[in-house]
C-alpha cells in the first residue's frame, strides 16, 4: 500500500517554524545540558582567612559534588566590602558562572551609607548558608569582665568599642544599647573580623562587637557578654543573655547572614542554569557532609540555616531600612 503525502502551506510553515525554533533553542539546550562546563568563580568581598572564607570553603566542598564542578574563590576586600561588589557587578559576566558570596548584614547596610555605582536591585541573594547574631565580647584579660563593669566604666568615660566596620549590624546593636543605657560608646572600625577580635584581646579597644560566629572561632581568648539576638548556642557564647532579655528592649535581631548572590540578568537570561544552581544549593543542605564540613571549619551547627530567594530578599530589604535609620550615626554626618 502506498501513501501519498502532500505538504500544504500551513504544514510547511508550521514545520519550518518548529525546525527554526528547535535550531535556535538547540544551543541553549546544549548549554543548559552542559552547564557547568567549567569552574564557577566566586567573588568574596572580604580577605582570605576570615569567616567568609571558612564558610565558603565548607559549603563549596559539598556543593561542588552536587553541581559537578569546582568553585574558584577570588578575594576582593576593601572599602567595607564595596570593592568586591563593585568588581562583581562591574566586571563579572552575568552568565551564572560568576557568583558573589557576601554577608547580607554589613554589606547591604553599606549601600544605605553610600550608594554603590550599580542599582542594588541588579543583584540578589538566592541562598543563605548560615545566619548568626552579633554579640558584644571582651578580651579574656580585659578588666571589664561583666556588663555591669562595662556600664560602670561607660558612666565615667567614653569607652572605645572595636567593630569590623562602621556600617555593621553589630554597630547598630551597640548604638541601640547605648541609647537604652544613656551612655555614649565610641565605635572604632578595626577593618575586619580578625582585627576586631585582636583589638579586644590586646586592649587596643575596651571591648568589641562582631558577628558571633567569628567570636566563637576565636576560642577562649575572648568572653562574650551580650548577644544582639537570641543565644541559640548557649555555652559556645558563654551563655551570654540576649540584649532584649537583659535590658528589656525590643530590638530586632542584629544578624550576619552569609549568602550566595547573583546578577539579576544572569538569572533572567539563563533560567536553566540558575535553576540548577538553586536546586543543587538546596540539595547541599540535605547532605550530612555539609554539617561535618561546617563544623570542621569551626562553624556552629545551629547557625547553618538555609534560606531561599524570598527570605534573602526580605533580609536585604530590612538591612536597607535599618541602615537608612542609623545612617547619621554611622557615617559621622
Amino acid at each position: 500500500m502506498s501513501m501519498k503525502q502532500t505538504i500544504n502551506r500551513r504544514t510547511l510553515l508550521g514545520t519550518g517554524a518548529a525546525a527554526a525554533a528547535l535550531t535556535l533553542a538547540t544551543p541553549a539546550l546544549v548549554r543548559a545540558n552542559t552547564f557547568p562546563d567549567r569552574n564557577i568563580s566566586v567573588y568574596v568581598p572580604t580577605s582570605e582567612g576570615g569567616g567568609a572564607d571558612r564558610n565558603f570553603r565548607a559549603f563549596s566542598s559539598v556543593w561542588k559534588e552536587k553541581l559537578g564542578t569546582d568553585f574558584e574563590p577570588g578575594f576582593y576586600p576593601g572599602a567595607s566590602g564595596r570593592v568586591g561588589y563593585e568588581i562583581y557587578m562591574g566586571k563579572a559576566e552575568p552568565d551564572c558562572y560568576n557568583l558573589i558570596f557576601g554577608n547580607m548584614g554589613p554589606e547591604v547596610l553599606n549601600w544605605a551609607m553610600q550608594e554603590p555605582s550599580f542599582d542594588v536591585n541588579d543583584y540578589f541573594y538566592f541562598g543563605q548558608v548560615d545566619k548568626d547574631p552579633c554579640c558584644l565580647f571582651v578580651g579574656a584579660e580585659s578588666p571589664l569582665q561583666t556588663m555591669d563593669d562595662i556600664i560602670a566604666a561607660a558612666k565615667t568615660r567614653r569607652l572605645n568599642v572595636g567593630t569590623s566596620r562602621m556600617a555593621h549590624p553589630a554597630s547598630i546593636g551597640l548604638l541601640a544599647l547605648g541609647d537604652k543605657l544613656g551612655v555614649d560608646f565610641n565605635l572604632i572600625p578595626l577593618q575586619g573580623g580578625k582585627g576586631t577580635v585582636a583589638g579586644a584581646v590586646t586592649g587596643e579597644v575596651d571591648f568589641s562587637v562582631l558577628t558571633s560566629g567569628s567570636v566563637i572561632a576565636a576560642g577562649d581568648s575572648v568572653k562574650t557578654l551580650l548577644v544582639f539576638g537570641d543565644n541559640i548556642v548557649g555555652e559556645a557564647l558563654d551563655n551570654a543573655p540576649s540584649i532584649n532579655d537583659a535590658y528589656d528592649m525590643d530590638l530586632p535581631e542584629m544578624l550576619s547572614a552569609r549568602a550566595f548572590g547573583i546578577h539579576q540578568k544572569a538569572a533572567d537570561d539563563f533560567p536553566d542554569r540558575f535553576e540548577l544552581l538553586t536546586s543543587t544549593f538546596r540539595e547541599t543542605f540535605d547532605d550530612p557532609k555539609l554539617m561535618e564540613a561546617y563544623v570542621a571549619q569551626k562553624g556552629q551547627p545551629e547557625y547553618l540555616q538555609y534560606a531561599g530567594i524570598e527570605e534573602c530578599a526580605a533580609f536585604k530589604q530590612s538591612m536597607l531600612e535599618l541602615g537608612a535609620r542609623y545612617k547619621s550615626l554611622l557615617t559621622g554626618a
Partner: protein
Amino acid sequence: MDSSTASILVEVFFETIGYWYIIVPTILLGLIVGGIPGFSAANTIIILMPLTLALDLQSGLVFMISLYCSARMGAGIPAILVNIPGTAGAAATPLDGYPMAKQGKGQQALAISFVASCIGGLLTTIIALATMPILARVGFYMHSVEMIVVMLFGISLIASIAAQDMVKGLIAGFLGLMIGSIGTDVVYATPRGTFGILELYDGVPLIPALVGLFAVSEAFVIIEKRVIVNHDGEPKTPNWGDTFDGVRIALKRWVHIVWTSIIGLVIGVIPGAGASIASFVAYQQSRSFSKTPELYGTGHPEGLIAPESANNGVTSGTLVPLLVLGIPGGATAAIMLVVMQFHGVSFGPSLFENQPKVGYGMFMAMAVSYVIMFLTILPLSRYMSHVTTIPTIYLAPMIIAFTLVGGFVPREYMFDMYLALAFGVLGYIARRTGYHVAAILIGVILGPLLEKYFLWSLKKSDGDIMVLFSSTLGNILWVAFALSIILPIVFGMRRKRKFEVPAE
C-alpha cells in the same frame, strides 16, 4: 622548660627532619614563587589549598611553614640581582643589594642575603620558641599610638635618603605619601583621590607600585647599557670564592644579624604589622647607628643584612600571636589558620595544653626549614648570579614582562599592569632627574599604615592630638625615635671633627 616539653621538642625535631622529602621540594617551590613578583607564600597556599587539605596535619604544616620561609627568602633574590622586590617585605633589600650586583658582587650579595636570612630566621625561631609567652604580650602594649612611632622610624628613612639632596628627597617622599593616601579612608570608607576608578578604592596596590618604581624603571635604565654589571665592576666569572666571601662578610657581622632579626621578630608579633615595616625600620636603625652611614645605598653589606634578617625575623614572629592568642599576625598566618582549623586544631591559649606537638611542631618545622635551606640554597648563589651578566637586550624585556605579570597576579586586574607601567615611567623620570625612587616607595608603603594608626588614635581620643603622647611605652618610643634621629647627626659631627683635627 620542663622535661616533658624538652622531650616533646626532641621528638618533634626528629619527626620534622623525617619530612625532608616535603621540605626540599617545597623550598625550591618557595624560592620560585617568592622570586616572582606578585606571588607569595599566601597566594601559593591558597592555590594549593586542595593539596594542603588533603595532606595529613603534620605534612600540611611542614609544607606551609617551609613555603612561608623559603618564599620570604626567595623574594630577596630578584631584588638583589635585577632590582625586582617580589613582595613589599623585600622592598628595602635592593637599596644595597642591587648596587652590589651592579658592582659585580651579585654572588656575594646573594650569599650575604642567604646567611642573614637563615641565621636571622633560625635565631628568631629559637627565641620565639623560648620566649613565646613573653613575646605574645608585645601586642598587648603596642597599640595604635605606639605603632605611629614605629611607622615614623621607617618613614624617617626618607630624610636619610634625602640627605644628598634634601629638597628632592623630601619632594619624592611627600609624593609617595600622597600616592599612599589614595583610596577609601579607614573610618568611614569614603573614597579619596580615586578619580572614580574602582581599582583604586582599596588604595594603590603595593605590588604594581613596587615593581613599577623599582623594576620597570630599572629596565628602562639598563636597556641603555650592555649588561647590569657596571663597566668598572669586578670580574664577573662566578667562583666559589665569592660565595665563601659573602658567608664570611655576613658572619663577621653576626651582631648585626642578631640585632636586626630581633627587630623583625618584635614587629612580627604585633598583629597587623608586617615584613615591610620591619625591613624599613631595621634598615633605618642599622643606618642610624652605623659608623659608616654614608655607605648605605651604595652596596653596603650591612644595608643588605638588615632588611633580610628582619623580614625573616617577622616570619617566626607572626606565628606567636597565631599560636598563643589565636590571632594571625599576617596574611600567610591567616591562611594557615584556615587550614589548621580544617584539621580540627584550636588555636589560642589552650593549644599548648591540648595539642602541644602542633604548637611546637610549627616552630620546629621552621627551624628545620631554615637549616635545610641554608644547605640547599647557598650553593645556588654561584649559578643565580649569572643573571647579572645576561645582555640587557634580553634581560630588560624579560624584566618588564615578568613584572607586568607580577603586577597582574595579586588582584588579576588589567588596570594593575597599566599601573605598574605608569609607576615605571614615574620611576624612570625620577631616576633621570635625581629623585630617589626608594623615597617615593617608602611613602607609598608606609604612608597608608601610618594614616591608619593615626586615624584610629584620633578616633579613640575624639580628635585630641595629645593622644600621641598618652602612653608610657609610646613616650619611650618617641624618645628613642628622637635619639635615633639626633645621635647619628652628633656622631657624624664628631667623626667629622676627628677627621679634621689631624688635617690641622
